[in-house]
């Protein structure tokens, strides 16, 4: 049975974790951990794929006698869980393959190896959990395991602070989820998902649960303004773990949101469909703007995760709006778009983090201003990173475009929604989505161009060497998937049909049987897209042009110094940097969003000091939300400090007072 097989895989991962804790310092521990993780994840991936494609036959439930004594631990495999297990285990398998090579650079393997399989097991367990207790327990287990991995290099500057912030935000998220499940379970305490599903909460309670789910799952996924920990914590971990956290763990958070809101909560209210896309749209634009201002390669990628989570939530929110208005076909389209973006983002974000890890291990730096020209020294990494960059920028014929195209198609269906607020809001969300897509392209021209193109800016970049074969293999598997999902999207959309069928009672028409593998979400007269044809056309036209020109015109090449308008400068510091590349966009958007200030420090005539340009960016959200909270907490802690130094009489009085107050509350409550 599929579910039992998956649970055995998870048990195997946990056993690997224990074995690694014992033997982490041995030379073979790395091969053991990543090899075992690769094997189990691949098996789990195969089982989950089979369960998704043959979904009703392979679904199942299991109850294990662990956890709360009167509840046990429920596990259930359905179409939604199977889809997210595919995402989780695809990411896990490639990250393990990458780790086989990349883990060689690890200085403190005993801080990484034991937690890595535990982290993988935690993510799998969350998706399989079928009662509130198991869900929260495994959710917290996943958070703690990843937190340990974030702290693996705790001596590097900033990592401890990042881990601390992550811990705080994860606790906040778990608290919100705990309350959400508490409200859902009601006073009777029916914590199994089956009994939650059977109950129908009042509109007020359901709205509260939605808000709590947005906080709980949103803080883990990185919704603005709960995203602050993400760009600090994700890059702090070793790169394959960064890839898992950014590419996969945020998707587990999306799973939590979908499970609670679409599955457990029953029918949605229409205003949910206004709130969720609006948050998604703001998240998307803010995420990409933050990314544009960033010069640290891994942090840039982490901010892009924030953007893509925004895009996913736009799709989810539209699905809620359509479902609330009883438009199942449109809801299925929006949900398919969101879920396809979940898959696509997990693929290209893992790929990009692997590339960033290869750059980091080859040069020792993540700062883009110290890189450049790596395409000459690391050609394969550069090619894989380029494919990932084009895919994440939502450009055809790669996969990122397909899911954004579907989201646009869903937006174009929304004038039929009856509520006025939605009529005003949805086009605005569409504009935000279009803006974020265009800005993402600018950001990845910067990320790829400054890191891999041009001339090396430092000695470290000049002496970089290509990364190992295992890492390259992991990257090219994902790059191939980016292209495959871009040119044959019909198969991937069809695989999602059982999920949308279960959650919206509708699914898109079968796609892969259509002529020429075109995708047609609604009707052929309305919209269609064919990535395969576009790809072959572009390849054909480019090949034809190259062939004709080389044969009939000229194929002579002469190498020479760059022209640069007649003033070539030999020094690589005259190149455009990441900061100068994003300067025009900083001028356009930054003055509002970041209160960006530029000051030129020009020395007086005769002074030989270099002129300097100072750029100051303020994180408005941090200043408005987090700094005051931290200040308040510090203030209260300072005041309460006195309580720690009371006499015994003082403490007794305090206890007595507390008792009296509690009794009074009880008396009033009754």
């Amino acid at each position, binding site marked *: 049975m599929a579910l039992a097989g998956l649970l055995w895989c998870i048990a195997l991962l946990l056993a690997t974790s224990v074995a690694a804790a014992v033997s982490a310092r041995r030379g073979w521990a790395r091969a053991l951990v990543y090899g075992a993780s690769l094997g189990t994840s691949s098996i789990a991936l195969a089982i989950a794929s089979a369960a998704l494609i043959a979904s009703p036959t392979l679904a199942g439930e299991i109850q294990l006698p662990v956890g709360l004594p009167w509840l046990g631990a429920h596990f259930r495999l359905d179409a939604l869980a199977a889809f997210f297990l595919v995402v989780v285990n695809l990411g896990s398998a490639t990250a393990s393959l990458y780790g086989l090579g990349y883990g060689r650079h690890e200085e403190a393997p005993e801080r990484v190896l034991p937690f890595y399989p535990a982290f993988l097991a935690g993510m799998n367990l969350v998706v399989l959990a079928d009662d509130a207790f198991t869900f929260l327990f495994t959710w917290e287990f996943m958070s703690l395991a990843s937190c340990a991995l974030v702290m693996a290099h705790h001596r590097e500057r900033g990592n401890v602070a990042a881990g601390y912030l992550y811990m705080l935000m994860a606790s906040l998220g778990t608290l919100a989820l705990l309350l959400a499940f508490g409200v859902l379970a009601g006073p009777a305490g029916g914590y199994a998902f089956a009994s939650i599903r059977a109950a129908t909460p009042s509109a007020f309670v359901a709205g509260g649960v939605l808000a709590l789910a947005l906080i709980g799952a949103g803080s883990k996924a990185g919704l603005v303004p709960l995203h602050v920990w993400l760009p600090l914590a994700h890059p702090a971990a070793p790169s394959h773990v960064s890839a898992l956290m950014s590419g996969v763990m945020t998707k587990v958070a999306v799973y939590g949101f979908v499970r609670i809101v679409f599955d457990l909560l029953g029918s949605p209210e229409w205003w949910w469909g206004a709130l969720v896309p609006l948050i998604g749209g703001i998240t998307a634009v803010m995420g990409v703007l933050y990314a544009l201002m960033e010069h640290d390669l891994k942090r840039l990628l982490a901010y892009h995760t924030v953007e893509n989570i925004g895009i996913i939530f736009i799709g989810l929110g539209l699905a809620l709006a359509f479902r609330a208005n009883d438009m199942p076909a449109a809801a299925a389209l929006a949900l398919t778009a969101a879920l396809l973006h979940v898959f696509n983002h997990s693929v290209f974000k893992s790929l990009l983090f692997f590339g960033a890890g290869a750059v980091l291990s080859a040069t020792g730096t993540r700062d883009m201003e110290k890189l450049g020209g790596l395409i000459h020294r690391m050609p394969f990494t550069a090619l894989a990173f380029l494919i990932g960059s084009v895919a994440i920028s939502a450009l055809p014929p790669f996969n990122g475009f397909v899911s954004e195209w579907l989201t646009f198609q869903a937006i174009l269906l929304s004038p039929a929604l009856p509520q006025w607020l939605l009529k005003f809001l949805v086009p605005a969300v569409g504009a935000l989505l279009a803006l974020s897509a265009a800005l993402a392209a600018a950001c990845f021209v910067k990320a790829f161009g400054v890191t891999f193109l041009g001339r090396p800016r430092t000695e470290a970049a000049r002496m970089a060497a290509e990364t190992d074969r295992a890492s390259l293999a992991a990257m090219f598997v994902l790059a191939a998937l980016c292209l495959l999902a871009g040119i044959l999207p019909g198969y991937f959309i069809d695989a999602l049909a059982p999920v949308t069928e279960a959650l919206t009672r509708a699914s898109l028409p079968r796609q892969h049987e259509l002529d020429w593998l075109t995708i047609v979400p609604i009707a052929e007269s309305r919209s269609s897209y064919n990535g395969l044809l*576009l790809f072959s*056309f572009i390849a054909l036209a*480019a090949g034809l042009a190259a062939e004709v020109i080389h044969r009939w015109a000229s194929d002579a090449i002469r190498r020479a*110094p760059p022209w640069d308008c007649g003033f070539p400068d030999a020094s690589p510091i005259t190149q455009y940097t990441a900061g100068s590349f994003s300067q025009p966009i900083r001028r356009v958007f930054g003055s509002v969003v970041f209160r960006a200030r530029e000051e030129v420090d020009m020395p007086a005539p005769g002074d030989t000091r270099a002129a300097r340009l100072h750029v100051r960016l303020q994180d408005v959200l941090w200043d408005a939300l987090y700094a005051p909270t931290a200040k308040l907490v510090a203030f209260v802690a300072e005041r309460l400090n006195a309580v720690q130094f009371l006499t015994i009489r003082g403490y007794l009085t305090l206890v007595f007072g507390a008792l009296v107050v509690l009794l009074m509350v009880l008396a009033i409550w009754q």
Partner: protein
Amino acid sequence: MAIALDFLVQIGQMLVVLALAPLLTGYVRKLKAHLLRRQGPPLVQPYRDLLRLLRKEVVLAHSASWVFRVAPYLVFATTWVAAALVPTFATGLLFSYAADMIAIVALLGSARFMLALAGLDVGTSFGGIGSSREMMIASLAEPAMLMVVFTVSLLAGSTQLSSIAASMQGPDVGVRVSLALALVGLVMVAIAENARIPIDNPATHLELTMVHEAMILEYSGRHLALIEAASYVKLLLYMSVIACVFFPWGVAISGQGFTAYLIGLAVYTVKLVAGGFLLAVFETAIAKMRVFRVPDFLGAALMLGFLAALLLFVTRAG
């Protein structure tokens, strides 16, 4: 039979856009020169330029990588494919279902992405300045374009250009405020995307204000020829989109017979002549703006497109 005809129309369309594009650019240049009381180069000068460049050797910077060498072919191919999917003289292109209007905008985005990377590849300051500004302009122009696409496809109930052209000829569209706003927005986007005055000057060199020309400064020989050809095709593409969406009269509908195609071709030529004339007059009458005024211009285009879409969202039957 119908498929064979559609296939012929498709091939004809691909050849027409490729053959006419340099002529359109030459015509605009000639007109601009006349408006400035100059003689101007002959109409066929762009063809001669292309042929001359194609025969010359490529001078490649030492620091150039394969991205620099592959980019011109990809840029040309992507732009050509995009242009081949816009109905010019006839709808019913065989492959028009492969990409709708959103995909065509995104295809142009792919071309721009590659070209901007090529600008950064050699590692010179001019290439960087061009790429950086091009992406800034695109980051506003692309959403503006998508808003126009939203407007038009809401009216037509489709994002397919063939269906849009057919439905815009129909009786139930009429004159609408949204369409007027969208037209203005689209024209502004087209000016920006094609690096025309007042955003960018296609004739400038050695100026800190140049955008597109700075990005391709390192290109020579056949690479430069391909990039120039791509930019000619892009100008033609935008004029075709405007003509197809807002002035679709005369476009031959699939299956109307041979004369309809001939009429379609003639009408299309007239539209291009008119469009080129308006472009030349506009460019001569207006001064180039500072690069940091460009966001205001494109922000206005974005707002026009957004307003047009919003009006439709609100007035559509609920």
